């Protein structure tokens, strides 16, 4: 099994892809998943995280088969 990672809006544009499929081995949190998928690139400040469409934090627990989504913050109007 694996963990799906999805990038939304500006993150998708910046990374040039909409997501990654990662081997679940060794991934315990969204922060782990980001680090695995994006190497040394630090996560942009205030990025929102969801696990299986539930609001989550970077150190929430993730399991095999979970979907992690990263969303840029939006404040303009």
């Amino acid at each position, binding site marked *: 099994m694996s963990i799906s990672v999805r990038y939304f809006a*500006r993150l998708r544009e910046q990374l040039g892809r909409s997501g990654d499929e990662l081997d679940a081995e060794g991934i315990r949190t969204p922060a782990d998943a980001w680090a695995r998928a994006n190497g040394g690139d630090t996560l942009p400040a205030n990025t*929102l995280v969801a696990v299986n*469409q539930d*609001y989550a934090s970077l150190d929430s627990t993730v399991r095999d088969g979970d979907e992690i989504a990263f969303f840029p913050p939006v404040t303009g*109007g």
Partner: protein
Amino acid sequence: MDQHDANRYSRQIRLPSVGEHGQQSLLDARCLIIGMGGLGSPAAMYLAAAGVGQLVISDFDRVEDSNLQRQIAHRSVDIGEPKAISAKRTLEALNPRCRITAIDWQLDDEELADQVAKADVVLDCSDNFATRFALNRQAFQSGTPLVSGAAIRTEGQIATFLPQDGGPCYQCIYPGDLEGEESCALEGVLAPVVGVMGSMQALQALLVLLGRTAGLAGRLLLFDALAMEWQSVRVPRDEACPVCAGRKAVHDGD
């Protein structure tokens, strides 16, 4: 409701989810809209058109040339005018029966608390975290539903917070010490993106006024215009939230 209103709002009254009773609730309602820019323009115009009886609109900026690409309540002849005054003219022309109160100065805490408490629903159409956090605090203090919208570049976010339902608040999503403001002036924004989000705010506000909040509670909707995708995220109350933690749900009949 007289014959004029029955005819004017007939296409809404026809809906089972609105009906005469629902339309009367809109006619009796008072909405506070903070910000008359890209989000506030379409939000206020739809609420006025839909027959909301009273709109209080607040903005202390003046209309600039570079606003007109997306802030559709203002016109070229309004450049230099306070946005609240310019928008009031547009809204009154759109629906003369809608009572518009324009606030063209910066509300202090006390004035903001007063306006939030008087409103049946508040729309956050502002463009900065400081206003968003202040408005969120006031909404939870007075128990007023808050429709929070944001848009920039080609993306947007919207959530309705219902203090009476025991649900989350804005600060459950964004921690209160947030920095790193972004602005449409620096980042840019594609005109209809604020239209989509502002119209969605008007829609969610109408649902609140009609008592149809089941689909709104605890949900954050995110819009990605380039991918033409919406995402929905379930947001729980943060039990450590300094604004809303410990608040009890209030239900009719309890």
